[in-house]
């Protein structure tokens, strides 16, 4: 067997609690309760084990990490473990005081999600009145403190026409980076797919617009894009390959190869309460289920892109074909590719099913 790869990134979902209700939330439909959350001491151990395993970046995420009253201790522990510590926040539920304490604790970077450049639309998407204003204020405070800021925009039908305005907003906030991420359809987003799905024309225009914006703002802001994969020809190399680059710890301590992995039935996830992280990385059944590329059937078997995209996303393969080992049907070579185009053509103006506990 090939040498075990070393992970580079850890997504630490500190809690599933969140004041917002975004209909594309990446958390699972079955949210974990506060009573099951790991304590700060356990997170501290996990961070040390992660660094020893090779992890360099930790992303403190959720839910809304600000819902944890011990967030500052958790961030300090991550820094102490030697990890590059990034806070991924909605900006709602974090006070300017907390932001200052996080800065003092050594936080390296902040990522704030903003739902739209239009305040009314942004609040409607988040399902929370006043969210836009609060996010704006918190992002400004982070920059004032000297923290590097990334603005994250999740793109879908309700905001896809305002990408350029979002980049202007990020520039105004003095963000160093903006992530323009088209919705990926898992969990809540899958449930809301027809309400979120842009038209093919909108997607084509948006992709061209992002290229243009990148040229226009070169040297002023880094624009990273997550492609709209239902409209792609090739699948994304999901999480850089299963069990290859990253791991995800849920609020209760379950360790997943990616945040959506629980959507694949019959996988056995181990918990940091029972096992050390290196043991989980090397030996847990879930991590070994799709490691490497040997399990991939045709058309991936023998395909020259097999080591580039690893056959795409296992969760998407399962969700759209019923077989987690199949080629991700986003690939135009997949026998199920026509199904993706059919689904991408369905737009319905139904109310969002907001993400709620």
């Amino acid at each position: 067997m090939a040498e075990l790869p070393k992970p580079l990134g850890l997504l630490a979902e500190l809690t599933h609690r969140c004041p917002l209700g975004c209909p594309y939330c990446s958390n699972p439909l079955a949210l974990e309760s506060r009573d099951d959350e790991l304590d700060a001491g356990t997170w501290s151990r996990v961070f040390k084990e992660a660094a020893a395993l090779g992890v360099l970046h930790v992303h403190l995420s959720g839910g809304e990490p600000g819902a944890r009253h011990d967030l500052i201790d958790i961030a300090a522990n991550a820094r102490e473990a030697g990890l590059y510590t990034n806070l991924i926040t909605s900006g709602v539920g974090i006070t300017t005081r907390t932001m200052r304490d996080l800065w003092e604790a050594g936080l390296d970077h902040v990522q704030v999600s903003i739902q739209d450049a239009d305040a009314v639309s942004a609040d409607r998407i988040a399902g929370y009145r006043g969210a836009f204003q609060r996010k704006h204020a918190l992002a400004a405070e982070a920059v004032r403190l000297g923290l590097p800021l990334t603005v994250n925009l999740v793109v879908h039908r309700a905001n896809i026409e305002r990408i350029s305005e979002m980049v202007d907003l990020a520039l105004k906030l003095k963000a160093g980076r903006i992530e323009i991420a088209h919705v990926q359809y898992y969990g809540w987003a899958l449930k809301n797919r027809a309400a979120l799905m842009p038209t093919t024309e909108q997607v084509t225009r948006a992709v061209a617009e992002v290229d243009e914006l990148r040229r226009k703002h070169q040297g002023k802001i880094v624009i990273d894009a997550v492609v709209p994969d239902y409209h792609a020809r090739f699948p994304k190399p999901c999480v850089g390959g299963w069990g290859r680059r990253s791991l995800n710890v849920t609020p209760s301590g379950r360790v997943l190869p990616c945040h959506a992995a629980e959507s694949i039935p019959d996988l056995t996830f181990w918990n940091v309460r029972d096992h050390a992280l290196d043991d989980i990385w090397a030996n847990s059944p879930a991590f070994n289920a799709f490691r490497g590329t040997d399990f991939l059937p045709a058309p991936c078997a023998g395909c020259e892109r097999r080591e580039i995209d690893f056959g795409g996303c296992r969760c998407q393969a399962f969700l759209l074909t019923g077989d987690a080992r199949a080629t991700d049907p986003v690939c135009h070579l997949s026998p199920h590719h026509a199904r993706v185009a059919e689904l991408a053509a369905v737009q319905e103006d139904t109310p969002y099913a907001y993400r709620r506990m």
Partner: protein
Amino acid sequence: MAEGDVISDDAKPRLPRGVRLTHNEAQGGWVLLAPERIFKADAIAAEILKRCTGEATFAGIVDELATAFNAPRERIRADTSKLLLGLAEKKLLEL
């Protein structure tokens, strides 16, 4: 200040907030970390970057490295300059 491809002797290079040099045994040594980005630093690059604190001048750093490694100052100066200008262009270093 950097002008063209020259760093002035009294420039005080520093890693900006959000860019950090760290040692990770499992990854085999020193790495320079930024948001969503990782650069492996070889032993020489690490020695240079450790000195980019915003306090030492470029000339001072070159002198120190030339002494520490018992190497010709001009060569050290050229190598250091190349590394720092490359990083500055990627916004991973302030000059």
